């Protein structure tokens, strides 16, 4: 296990090194992507220019959601964002090449890229989160302080698991990659808002099927000590790490199954 970790680091290290060769361009890209994604938050600010609250959530509280979800998603984007190109890997035979190497296929696919420029998104989300943590009226306890990094790590694992599981659709229908984007980018978009504003079907979807409610919303309820409008069991507010592990395991299973299908049905 540790050995696979080391190989992963080596492989992405190689990609990172080749990107660092164009340092100036990279810095520019990081800066640009930070600014651009910050505009997402600007949109939220514009909304709050017009109303004081969104379903009982203040702008600082929504900023907390945005920050946690944003960092998690940006980290995920850094690690597996290149899954957008996965259909191409299948089409041009790169995946076959992967099957001929003595490493698990998922590891190789995940290690196949590591876009340093995505650090920009992480930076802007961190900035928003810091401001939110300071500005929101939080009664800090040890538990709540611990929940912030815990939520980010769990959130990253959840998004990663979801992205991998959805990406396997490329094994069955090659052109379907945009469906995946609806859920990954769309998922991140909706995570910045309290799920109470969404219709019932969507709430259930993000709670029980594609568990993105556990990325920011539920941990935030705990951190902010907000009453839960939906009547959910309180335990769910602490459940993010478990959901994260579960999601990753399910993703792994889905992947194995998809590869098995690919190897039977033919390239």
């Amino acid at each position, binding site marked *: 296990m540790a050995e696979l970790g080391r190989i992963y680091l080596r492989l992405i290290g190689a990609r990172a090194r080749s990107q660092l060769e164009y340092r100036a361009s990279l810095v520019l890209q990081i800066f640009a992507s930070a600014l651009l994604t910050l505009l997402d938050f600007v949109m939220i600010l514009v909304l709050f220019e017009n109303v004081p609250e969104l379903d009982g959530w203040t702008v600082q509280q929504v900023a907390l959601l945005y920050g946690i979800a944003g960092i998690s998603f940006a980290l995920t984007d850094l690690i597996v964002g290149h899954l957008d190109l996965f259909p191409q890997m299948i089409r041009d035979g790169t995946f076959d090449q992967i099957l*001929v190497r*003595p490493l698990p296929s998922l590891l190789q696919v995940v290690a196949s890229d590591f876009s340093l420029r995505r650090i920009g998104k992480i930076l802007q989300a961190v900035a928003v989160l810091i401001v939110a943590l300071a500005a929101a009226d939080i009664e800090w306890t040890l538990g709540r302080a611990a929940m912030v990094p815990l939520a980010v790590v769990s959130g990253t694992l959840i998004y990663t698991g979801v992205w991998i599981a959805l990406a396997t659709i490329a094994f069955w229908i090659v052109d379907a990659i945009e469906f995946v984007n609806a859920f990954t980018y769309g998922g991140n978009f909706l995570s910045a808002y309290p799920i109470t504003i969404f219709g019932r079907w969507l709430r259930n979807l993000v709670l029980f099927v594609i568990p993105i409610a556990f990325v920011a919303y539920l941990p935030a309820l705990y951190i902010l000590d907000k009453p839960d409008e939906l009547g959910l069991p309180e335990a769910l507010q602490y459940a993010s790490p478990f959901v994260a592990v579960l999601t990753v395991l399910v993703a792994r299973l889905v992947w194995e199954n998809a590869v098995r299908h690919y*190897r039977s049905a033919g390239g």
Partner: protein
Amino acid sequence: MADPVIQVEDVEKRFVVRVKRGRLRRERREVAAVDRIAFEIERGTIVGYLGPNGAGKSTTVKMLTGILVPSGGRIRVAGLDPSRRRVELAAKIGVVFGQRSQLWWDLPLRDSFELLRHIYRVPPARHRENLDRFADVLALGPFIDTPVRQLSLGQRMRGELTAALLHDPEIVFLDEPTIGLDVVAKAAVREFLSEVNRERAVTVLLTTHDLADIERLCSRLLVIDHGRLIWDGGLEELRRQHGPERTLVVDLEESAPPLELDGARVVKVDGPRQWLRFRRDETSASELIAAVGAQARLLDVAIEETEIEEIVRRIYAAGGR
């Protein structure tokens, strides 16, 4: 002692194909890309694998390397079942796909080798030893620090071969390794494969359309068409069965009218040079030379075999008999 490193028994691969019939309807049909083939390959052999496009060559290779799971039959490569023990097998084989690259595109060649060393867990000393040797034989020196995307096709192919052999595989699968290369590069690749096979007993399965590859390297040929094996044997045997004719080219001291000989007929005359076609099962070359010498003064002789091209064409035409 028989040591089959590849064993294929009764193997088939069926695909479900959806064929469009009209605007909306689609028919499901099962197609057998590989239709019950069987063969064994001894360790240390260089085998040529031929067949028209779509015959089932790449499907077979994909099954042997663990990419595809067969629909039926039994495969053992280096003692392992590729469909079940893919990762284990991968450590023992090397693969070069002619069109695709296993190297890291924007890194120097040397870095690719280094990454592969970790992936295949090659002890550093052994890796260095192999790399030095290959770099020497294939003259990698001048471009080993160049990013792969800047290499010419010939240079890249030499890099690919090195990459495939650095971890001391038992078997290498090569798919069209000389395609698109110039004459010099092709010779270098053939020389290299031949040497590696000799020195390290590496078994080579070579898929190719290049008949010169076959002539220079392969001691055994497998020919597949429409999913069936239509030839399995040695090159000489192939010649004997399907290329029964040979040509004796004689350079006479001076121009003469076409020679009249038993068991041979003159097919071409060009000044003092004459081409004599004869059947190998009827006449021996030495007999013929003696017969010519009795009629005229000989300066030089050469023997030409039936073009392998011709032989292969005949086999394809004969089909799956």
